[in-house]
């Protein structure tokens, strides 16, 4: 008996909720604002990225509203915290779409949280723009492009292209040694792209070695690599192991340039490897706050002014550009109709943003510039910026 009563109660509540949300829809259509939903990790494990992303996004919204909004309408953000939890992410987007009637959803930051919201976005035909999620599966699933999912950052394998370009053009090497983290798809994915790109232009791979996460000692492998005399050592792994590899390589007398990808962007690298050993090492990243480009300088200044002198992280910078990517699509769509915005996002071409030009490729991944960061006496400095070709 008790359970029957409970079912009745749930049914009544559900009906009332649907009635209420029906009312909400009318008022949303009448209003003169463009509502963008934000499903973001404001608390929990990924909060560092989530809160930084929202900082970047808010700055962009403030700027666009100061200039009169989009197509004469002000932009309004509805922020829901998914607590860095996949189930909460599903709840968050459901609330944003059914209750708040947003025209597009920005976020979440991590791949797993984005995956948890995709079904809801497809059912309701509302586009999502993930600013930082780098997993390939976010936009392409089993070979098919997900129609409503987009991202604002480049995906991991793209860094392989950038690194190959850097090794060929800037370092002008004729051969390289690879040392890959075999326990990470991230590392293997980047390594595969580098190897393929280098082979096309006749750069040989003289040693192809592997390690596993949590390995401490790399001397045996490095001794073997040293004997091959490579002109550069490629280590597309994470900072913890990369730090030990750089340190032990330098100790064994390997003096050639060592290059990696954005997994290197952590203070532990310089701490463990030592500032001196880190000289002549480079890695790819999405953005550098030291970029001398005037647009980047202006963003850094504006961001610091807005947030009490805080330096914008890459998450804030990408989200800032991601916000303008979305604004541009809404503007070209000419209305707040989610399906028109989806079509406009897919057709983005040569859009000039703070970090450089951005075009959306057929897989809903942006083609955009990447920067190469160099370690000089323990400090990061921007070496060069590489545009996609």
């Amino acid at each position, binding site marked *: 008996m008790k359970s029957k009563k409970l079912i009745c109660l749930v049914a009544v509540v559900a009906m009332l909720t649907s009635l209420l949300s029906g009312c909400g829809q009318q008022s949303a259509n009448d209003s003169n604002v463009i509502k963008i939903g934000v499903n973001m990790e404001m608390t929990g494990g990924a909060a560092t990225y989530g809160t930084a992303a929202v900082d970047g996004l808010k700055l962009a919204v403030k700027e666009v509203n100061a200039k009169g909004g989009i197509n004469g309408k002000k932009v309004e953000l509805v922020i829901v915290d998914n607590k860095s939890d996949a189930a909460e992410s599903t709840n968050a987007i459901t609330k944003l779409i059914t209750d708040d009637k947003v025209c597009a959803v920005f976020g979440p930051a991590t791949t797993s949280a984005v995956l948890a919201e995709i079904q809801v976005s497809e059912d309701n035909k509302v586009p999502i723009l993930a600013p930082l999620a780098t997993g390939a599966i976010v936009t392409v699933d089993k070979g098919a492009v997900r129609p409503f999912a987009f991202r604002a950052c480049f995906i991991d394998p793209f860094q392989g292209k950038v690194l190959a370009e850097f090794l060929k053009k800037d370092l002008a090497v004729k051969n390289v040694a690879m040392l890959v983290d075999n326990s990470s798809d991230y590392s293997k994915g980047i390594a595969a792209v580098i190897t393929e790109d280098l082979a096309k232009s006749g750069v040989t791979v003289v040693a192809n070695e592997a390690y*596993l996460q949590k390995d*401490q*000692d790399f001397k*045996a*492998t490095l001794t073997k690599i040293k004997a091959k005399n490579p002109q550069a050592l490629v280590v597309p792994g994470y900072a913890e192991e990369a*730090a030990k590899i750089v340190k032990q390589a330098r*100790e064994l007398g390997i003096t050639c340039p060592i290059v990696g990808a954005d997994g290197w962007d952590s203070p*532990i690298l310089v701490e463990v490897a030592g500032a001196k050993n880190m000289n002549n090492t480079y890695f790819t990243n999405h953005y550098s706050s030291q970029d001398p480009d005037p647009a980047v300088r202006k963003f850094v200044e504006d961001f610091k002014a807005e947030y009490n002198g805080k330096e914008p992280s890459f998450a804030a910078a990408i989200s800032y550009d991601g916000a303008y990517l979305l604004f541009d699509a809404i503007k070209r769509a000419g209305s707040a109709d989610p399906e028109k915005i989806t079509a406009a996002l897919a057709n983005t071409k040569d859009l000039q943003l703070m970090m450089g030009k951005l075009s959306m490729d057929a897989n809903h991944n942006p083609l955009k510039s990447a920067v190469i960061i160099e370690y000089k006496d323990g400090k990061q400095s921007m070496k060069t910026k590489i545009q996609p070709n």
Partner: protein
Amino acid sequence: MESNSIVMQIVQQCVNGIMLGSIYALLALGYTMVYGIIRLINFAHGDIFMVGAYVCFFAITTFHLPFFAALIVAMILSAALGVLIEKIAYKPLRNAPRIAVLISAIGVSLLLEYGGVALLTAQPRFFPPALGEVIFDIGGIIINGPQIIILAVSVVLMIALTYVIKFTTVGKAMRAVSFDAEAASLMGINPNRIISATFAIGSALAAAAGGLIGAYYNSIDPLMGVMPGIKAFVAAVLGGIGIMPGAMLGGVILGVVESFVSGFWSSTYRDVVAFAILIIILIVKPAGLLGKYRGEKV
């Protein structure tokens, strides 16, 4: 001599292997000692190693102790932790089937690992290079100062341990308990006390290894004990579990084999070979290289 010749490579890989092996040996000593006394494979050993590294880390960074003082603090606190673990997790199972104690040990191991993640986060921490950063280049063969210290400490601890077990009253009591706990207690030895002492010494050794390795590789994290723990176990079995010099020999052999596999074959096969050795030893010579097979006591 040309620094990349095959001879030089072989010598360098021997150096790499002996240094790596001395770390396995240091850990294997604790495993083998506990096993030798109470026939328990203490799977939490690798995690006490981790706790030792953290205690050492906080003693240096928060309390600004010099490295060797910090190491002693870590050894004392870890010894206490080892005794506590034995009292809570192993002693109530003294008369239970051996498999129950083994499962309890795995439980303690997971508790320490993920308790560490919860308390200290999984983020690796930077451990200051307290052993110095001297590098010797002997005709192209490169040896680190810290590696030599680790090797020396391993040898000294092994000798000290052999002395304690062979010639002191505690050691004699340990061997008596190991031989027959009931008969030993009739002779006036308190087996519980002796087992506590065994855990205290074993855990102190693990903590010493933790501090040294933290200072050598410069980073520590709550799961740092997992892989070295397993490798040290392989080393202990290889040399003959329960036999002190066997742990040292097993560690060095394992280290050299790993270096040669990585250096002359492929780094991908390194762990495959390490564990294949474990399986082969268990099949061909279950008592280990230095062990003599003794029938199970009934």
